[in-house]
Structures are given as C-alpha cells and as structure tokens.
C-alpha cells in the first residue's frame, strides 16, 4: 500500500461516502477536496453546488473561495444567491450538506462563530455563513475535520449550526424534519451517530491508528462501536487523483499576481 498522510486518508474516506446521485452543498476546504475527489473517481455525475449560486459545477482545480470564477464557468447554471437559498437549499433539493468545523461536540453541533462569550469573545471567528440553514435543510449532513482537543470539545461555545442538540430526538422536538449529521470523518477515524443517543461513535479507524490516539485528540470520552473496522487505505487511483488535484490547485492559485 502507498504511503499517505492522515489528511489524505481523511479526504479520501470522505470522498468515498459520496455517490453519483448525490446533490451536494459544498463548503470550502476539506469538504471541497473530498467532493471533487469523489467526482473525479467513483462519482462522475455527482452534482456539486456552492452557495455562490453555481449548480452542477466541475472545477479543474479546487476553488480558493466559494465564488471562484471556474465554479461558474464549469457549472450547469449559475443562479442568484437569494434563489440559491430559497429554491435550492430551503426547497429541499440538496441531499448532502458537507461542513467543516472549528469546534464540534459529540452530537454534531458546530461552532464557527466565537471562542469564549459571544458579547466578549476571546476569538471572533468568521461566523456561520450558510451553515445554520444548511444544517437543517439538507437531507443529511457530513462533517469533516482534523482531530484536536481544541476542536472536538465537551461543550461548544456557540451553536452556530444545530446537529443533534442534546442528542436523542432533539431535532424532531424542534420540528426539524431532516436527518442532520449522519457521518463524521476525521484524520483518524470514521464516526457515525448512535441510533438512539445520536452520539458520534467510532465505526472505523484509519490504518495504523490506535484507540488511544483517537481519544488523546478528542475532548470528550470517545465511544467506540462494538465492532470497529479498519478504514481501507487509499488506492493508488484515489491518492493520485487527490495529489494531482492539489498540484493543479497549487499551480493555479500560486500563479498570477496583480501589478
């Protein structure tokens, strides 16, 4: 098996979770890489949507922002942002919303707003953007992030977007009809919510990863499934596709510079 980094494994494991029929609302960063690797490998017909209004886009390089020109140039159509949020997201047309997180708790609630108190923040983060409604309008939510005790915490400082709240049937109690977070992919493991409690549970660990590593890099007491699988390592094709994509991206964005 070829050598690979934990981040590569994370991106490729996330890509594998996507299928040809998915209509995917893509966040920037790791989600974008995973969605495009899926498109360039096993899911050529997957529909990728970025909140800038580009529907069915197929960029040759990873966008630096959700509104890069190439997203529009390769899209089936580009609509206004109000239409994107009204007809396409709120309209229930998105099967999977793919989010990253600054802070995450065991129930898939995400904070990208503030560290510390909202009124007197220790760190003011960018904020939610589209996440509050992505988290409730998409049929299901995938989350991907690198494990750190600062990122995966017992209690998040702010509910930027709602996952399973306090767990169990909290979503239904709030009248939310969609599934919410159904998958968490980190650089160490694949997690799925427990059917009852909705707490994220490790169902697969990446090759060579130990339970201790998973626990050391997570701020809450980790629950492991009765049977924890080993994530199949990246194939040559998956790895080459991801690395070529990143090389093209490097080249494209490193490139031109204004006078």
């Amino acid at each position: 098996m070829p050598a690979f980094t934990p981040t590569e494994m994370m991106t490729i494991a996330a890509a594998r979770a996507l299928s040809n029929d998915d209509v995917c609302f893509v966040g920037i960063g790791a989600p974008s890489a995973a969605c495009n690797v899926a498109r360039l490998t096993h899911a050529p017909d997957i529909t990728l949507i970025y909140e800038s209004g580009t529907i069915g886009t197929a960029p040759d390089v990873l966008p630096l922002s959700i509104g890069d020109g190439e997203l529009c140039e390769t899209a089936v159509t580009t609509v206004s942002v109000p239409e994107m949020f009204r007809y396409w997201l709120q309209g229930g047309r998105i099967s999977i919303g793919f989010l990253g997180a600054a802070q995450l708790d065991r129930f898939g609630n995400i904070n990208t707003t503030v560290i510390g108190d909202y009124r007197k923040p220790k760190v003011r983060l960018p904020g939610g953007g589209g996440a509050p409604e992505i988290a409730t309008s998409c049929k299901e939510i995938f989350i991907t992030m690198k494990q750190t005790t600062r990122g995966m915490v017992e209690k998040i400082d702010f509910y930027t977007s709602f996952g399973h709240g306090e767990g169990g049937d909290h979503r239904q109690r709030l009248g939310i009809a969609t599934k919410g977070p159904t998958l968490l992919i980190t650089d160490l493991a694949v997690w799925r919510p427990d059917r009852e409690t909705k707490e994220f549970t490790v169902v697969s660990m990446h090759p060579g990863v130990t339970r201790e590593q998973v626990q050391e890099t997570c701020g809450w007491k980790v629950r492991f499934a009765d049977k924890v699988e080993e994530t199949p390592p990246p194939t040559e094709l998956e790895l080459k596709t991801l690395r070529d994509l990143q090389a093209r991206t490097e080249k494209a964005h490193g490139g031109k510079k204004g006078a």
Partner: protein
Amino acid sequence: MAKFQSLQQAVAENLRDGDTVAFEGFTHLIPHAAAHEAIRQGRKDLTLIRMTPDIIYDQMIGMGLARKVIFSYAGNPGVGLLRRMRDAIENGWPRAIETVEHSHAAMANAYEAGAAGLPCAVFRGYLGAGLREVNPAIKNVTCPFTGEVLAAVPAHRPDVTFIHAQKANRRGDVLIEGIVGVQKEAVLAAKRAVVTVEEIVDDFNDMHPNLCILPHWTVTAIAHVPGGAHPSYTHGYYDRDNAAYLEWDKISADRDLFTQWMKDNVLAVGPEAFAVRVQGL
C-alpha cells in the same frame, strides 16, 4: 435615471455620514474602488451591510468609518479571519463597532424582501441556531394555513448600495454576468444605487433576453472604473488576485503596517490605480 459621473462625484453625492450602506459582491465583482473612494472621502458612522464582509469592510472598519456592521460571514475568503474587524470587536480599535449577525439565508432573504418592497423576509431558518438568542432582529411568523413557525427578519433597505458590474450602455442600463450574487436585490432594495463598470458600450442589442440587467431608471450613478473590483475579479475581464488576499492577512495583522498600507495604496491614489492593478490578471 442613471447619471454618468466620476467615482469621486458619485460617492460625494450619494454617500453621507450615518448612512446605511451596502457594498455588495459575492466573492466576484466586489466594489473595491468604490469602497476606497468612500475611505478617501472620510465618511463617518456608517452602518455597513454585507453578507460576506471581507477585505473592503476590514479596511473601512480599520479606518474608523463604521459604527455598525450587519453581516453573515466575516472572513478573508479562502485565507482566514478579518483582523481589523476582529480588532474592532475584541479591542475597540480604532473605535468600537456594533455587530448584527445573521445567516446567509437570512441576509439573502432580507435583500430579496427589500427589493420586493416588503417590510420583512419570511423563511425557514435558524432552527436550533444560537444566533436566535443573540440577535433580537430575528423573530417569528406563523403560517396561517399549517401553523408552522417560520423565521422573520427585517428587510434590508440601504440608503445606498454600491456594486461593480461588467458593462453599462450609453443609456445607463447595467449588465451583471457570472456569479451575480445578491447585487440585483441589493440595488433594488436601496434608495440610491451607484455602479462602477469595467466598460461602457453603445447598446445591449443582440444580448440574450434573460440576462441580469438593471434598467437605467433603477441606477442613480455610473462610474467607469476599469479594474474596480481588484483584488476580486470580473468575469470576462480579469481573474482574482489570490496573492493579494494572502498578503492582506499579513498587512491586516499589524495596526501600523495596516495604517501605512492604507496611506500608500488608498489615501495617496485614485480610482485610476485599479486599471494598473489588474494588468496581467
């Protein structure tokens, strides 16, 4: 009826101290030249509306123009945080600012409602979201048919909206192409609208009938500013200057470096500088 003016005149006549103003552009077509002109003219106590306040609002806040910011994502796209905005929020430098924070869906719907002449936007949103507790401008309405509780936010009604577009024709109609964002709504929601354009052409004959065009009677002023979106991009004219966004992360990290950069690159120059900046992009 659209007036063709210099950017100096257009800003002087349409932006006043204390105004509520939107400089819109969704990654694409961000009106940097217009924002720099507002900074040069030293407007004060502005309420800034924008879905994605990025470098231009970081610059306006850092230069002390803003009293309040209404927004949904405050980041340097693809790079990181807005350091001048953070400094204002966390440390009140150069002045404290009030923030009103929404989701993208709420902001987009608020512009749409403004364009539609409605007092509020009604949508399915903020379910379980923390912003509900910290933003009193988020309320509810109940569907009289199903009983579903929906979110409501006030419509955006800027005193003036600034956008950058590809083309105007001699009559003053404006064409926006590519990622059109919320610009049409931001213009129609505003009392006044100022548009900077890459190019002025004779007419829009032979264009596809369904393009995003603002008729001349919806626009207050048009200024011809080639490159006016730099370091953002203009579809069909020049690419995004990604290096400049990365540089901004360093420049904005230090108050003195920021102040010097603004002196050299904004205060000391004029709108014509933008045409040069996009050469080679």
